[in-house]
């Protein structure tokens, strides 16, 4: 089944969405920092949205029915409300109120991104999914450059908190245009989608999810440590750090179409190049070197992430579109959690952060080389066997650790209950003795 107009609407939606993200979420952390929230607070905000993404993803994975009924209504509502939440977010002054609104925003964002994944996974075949995702990434990156330019100009011209309110309102408006675009589409084919009763090839799905988790977590951790390293460690001015982001985005505009036309087997090369970047950062402090690295990093990362998309699109037939989208969302959430947790732990230990990011990327490479039959270096049957063995071992470890945790928790609660009982006895007899001695 082909949906030509849907494909273009999805690409345009991404472009408008990126414009909206650049003007809202892109400046939100700066806004929070200006409001007085410290680094730990900011990391906690990001950690919280990671938890929400994972929780919503896991819920929908376990009960796919909750999303597939009245799908369009749910998608449009979440899509629109996510954008509208920026209006109160811009007006709220209290940090606590901001956190509440941000949590509401994150919930809508998780549902909307889940819905958008479902539109893609549920409407196209493997080849088209890769095509749509590649076009969306490219259009998103191009729009993001435009958005960043606009943000820089507005932040320069306006003063006080009013500039943020204006940006949030403007971004929200651009975002609502993308919602309107989605409203024009007929999504009836996604109503009550067939959901496979039994999930087949769990080992392969596990390997692909672990690969995606390692890749996304390493990407998030690396970008989390790189900019502060340049500014604090190498003394770069803010504009150079911003230029790094711009170069990276521009590089992915070209990177995605390039990798799109290359066989997925070669995506391993992109991953290998990407693994070398975190270790190369410390080789030279020269601006041209760091800017080149940014370009290489974004270019290779777009190839590596296309591998994830390719695998999820391929495994769609075993998981079903809803579960594929839910799994992608929860893996993304978990990656955010891992990166934020590590970021909080490592704080300003940039060398450690780069080493861990490189190790994660190399682990992702090892996974592709050994466990993912579609692109493995070993024969496919061996890769399948490795994937199944890893899945079995992890599942057993997970079950054992859950059982031990449960048992320990119950033992502690039982001891607490007994302590409360004995405390009650003590209170009774102490009261009695006080009454007698009084």
């Amino acid at each position, binding site marked *: 089944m082909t949906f030509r107009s849907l494909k273009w609407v999805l690409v345009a939606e991404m472009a408008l969405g990126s414009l909206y993200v650049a003007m809202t979420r892109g400046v939100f952390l700066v806004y929070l920092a200006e409001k007085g929230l410290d680094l730990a607070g900011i990391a906690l905000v990001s950690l919280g949205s990671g938890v929400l993404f994972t929780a919503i993803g896991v819920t929908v994975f376990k009960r796919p029915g909750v999303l597939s009924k009245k799908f369009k209504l749910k998608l449009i509502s979440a899509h629109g409300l996510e954008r509208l939440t920026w209006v109160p977010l811009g007006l709220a002054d209290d940090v606590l109120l901001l956190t509440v609104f941000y949590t509401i925003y994150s919930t809508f964002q998780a549902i909307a991104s889940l819905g958008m994944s479902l539109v893609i996974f549920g409407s196209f075949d493997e080849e088209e999914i890769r095509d749509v995702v590649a076009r969306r990434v490219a259009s998103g990156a191009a729009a993001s450059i435009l958005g960043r330019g606009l943000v820089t100009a507005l932040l320069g011209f306006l003063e006080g908190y009013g500039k943020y309110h204006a940006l949030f309102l403007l971004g929200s408006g651009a975002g609502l245009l993308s919602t309107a675009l989605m409203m024009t589409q007929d999504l009836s084919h996604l109503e009550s989608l067939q959901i496979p009763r039994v999930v087949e090839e769990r080992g392969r799905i596990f390997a692909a999810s672990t690969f995606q988790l390692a890749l996304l977590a390493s990407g998030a951790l690396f970008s989390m440590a790189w900019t502060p390293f340049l500014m604090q460690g190498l003394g770069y001015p803010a504009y150079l750090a911003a230029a790094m982001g711009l170069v990276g985005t521009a590089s992915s505009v070209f990177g995605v179409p390039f990798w799109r036309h290359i066989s997925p087997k070669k995506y391993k090369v992109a991953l290998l190049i990407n693994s070398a970047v975190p270790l190369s950062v410390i080789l030279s402090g020269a601006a041209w070197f760091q800017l080149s690295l940014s370009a290489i990093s974004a270019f290779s990362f777009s190839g590596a992430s296309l591998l994830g998309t390719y695998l999820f699109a391929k495994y769609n037939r075993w998981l079903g579109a809803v579960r594929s989208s839910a799994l992608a969302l929860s893996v993304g959430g978990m990656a955010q959690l891992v990166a934020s947790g590590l970021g909080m732990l490592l704080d300003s230990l940039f060398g450690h952060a780069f080493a861990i990011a490189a190790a994660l990327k190399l682990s992702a490479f090892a996974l592709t080389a050994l466990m993912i039959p579609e692109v493995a270096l070993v024969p496919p049957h061996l890769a399948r066997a490795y994937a199944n063995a890893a899945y079995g071992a992890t599942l057993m470890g997970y079950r054992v650790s859950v059982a031990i945790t449960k048992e320990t928790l119950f033992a502690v*609660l*039982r*001891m607490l*209950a*007994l302590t*409360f*009982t*004995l405390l*009650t*006895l003590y209170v*009774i*007899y102490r*009261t*009695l003795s006080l*009454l*007698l001695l009084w």
Partner: protein
Amino acid sequence: MLRQLAQELIELTPRIFLALAALTSTIVAIKIVNFYLRKLLSFSKVDEAVERFFGSKPPLAPSSIIVGAADLGLGFIGVYLVLSVLLPRDLLVKVDAAAVYVARVLSVLAMIGFVLFTFNMLMSRIKVETKLKSYMTFVSFLLATALLIDVVALSDPVKEALVSGLAIGIGISIAVFATWWFFADYIERYIKSLERRQD
């Protein structure tokens, strides 16, 4: 006379009502504490834990003992409150003294119970010879007697003399027992060698 009776009734009524209120609150408190303790104890699975530890079901379930002790304590509090409302001050002082004495007797009984229970448990769990069994019963009896002396109505010097005598007796008997327990073989061999030399 009727007037005096009415006057006394008028004076007593608030106290009676207060005493009734104290009794009612005690009953309600017992009910609530009972419910809450039973829930906590059933969750903590203390009976199963004790059973697993001792290898058999104890004659009285520990959870019932705990709940019973709590009820008893609350009951005592209730009774004391009622008495403190109804009785005059000088009589209440005597009640206090009596209560302290009863508490001492109860604690002595509890201690005796504990000593006997522990010895009994030890004897049932360890394979003990008849001689050793009777020795342990003897020691537990001496210990119980020493505890009982604390609550009997004897003069203090007599109590002191009795307790010291018992303590010395228990100490010596334990020392003799330990010597026999650890060195019985050597002593036996030594006596036999002495006998052989005499022959």
